[in-house]
């Protein structure tokens, strides 16, 4: 698929009900998703605001519980 803007990624984290906190050098998004699973994604503070590169975005999408990037964007467009 490609890169993902940081803003969209954060919006989806919020839509999932995850909360953000700063822990050391990382911004931590964590919480329990709708299926009752614990989810956590962390980003380095220096990466904040930057577009998330393709391969890395793919990994983070899976950590949020989505099967694919398509699922991620489908969820975003459906809920925005």
């Amino acid at each position, binding site marked *: 698929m490609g890169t993902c803007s940081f803003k969209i990624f954060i919006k989806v984290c919020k839509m999932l009900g995850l909360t953000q906190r700063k822990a050391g050098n*990382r911004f*931590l998004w964590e919480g329990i998703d709708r299926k009752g699973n614990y989810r956590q994604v962390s980003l380095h503070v220096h990466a904040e605001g930057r577009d998330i590169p*393709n391969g*890395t975005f793919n990994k983070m999408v899976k950590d949020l519980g989505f099967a694919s990037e398509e699922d991620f964007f489908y969820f975003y467009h459906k809920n925005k």
Partner: protein
Amino acid sequence: MATTVSIADFRKDMRKVLETALTGREIICENTKSRDREKCSFIKTKLFQEILKAYIFMPKIFYDKETNTHNIHLDELNLYAYADTLPEAVEQILDLAVDYTKDYIERLELFLNVPDRKEQYPYILRLSHCASREEIKQTLLGNTYGNV
């Protein structure tokens, strides 16, 4: 076979149990009075660290042309870093690993109850035994970084 002792025997002769453990033998201490008979292992720390070496980190390092960033994936801990330069990305992944290890140990009860996070525990233990940031770097990246 492993050596099992009761908590009562452990209390009675703690010195002997520890001396036996220091020979490399694993000592399992069992609470025979508890309903679920919980057990606890004593093992020589150096030996334990050797055992943990079986848990090897295999970082994936690559350059993303679209965003002009150097990326490092540490799949064993679900940590990812991306930065303009490779040294920056290395520092970021080190920061993330150090912070995550601290957080994991602090909230151990939570992470041990999440199946995919529980699997990370041996890797967390490996990092928690590192004495310095340099040792963590060596443990995480080994010789991989030098080959990039």
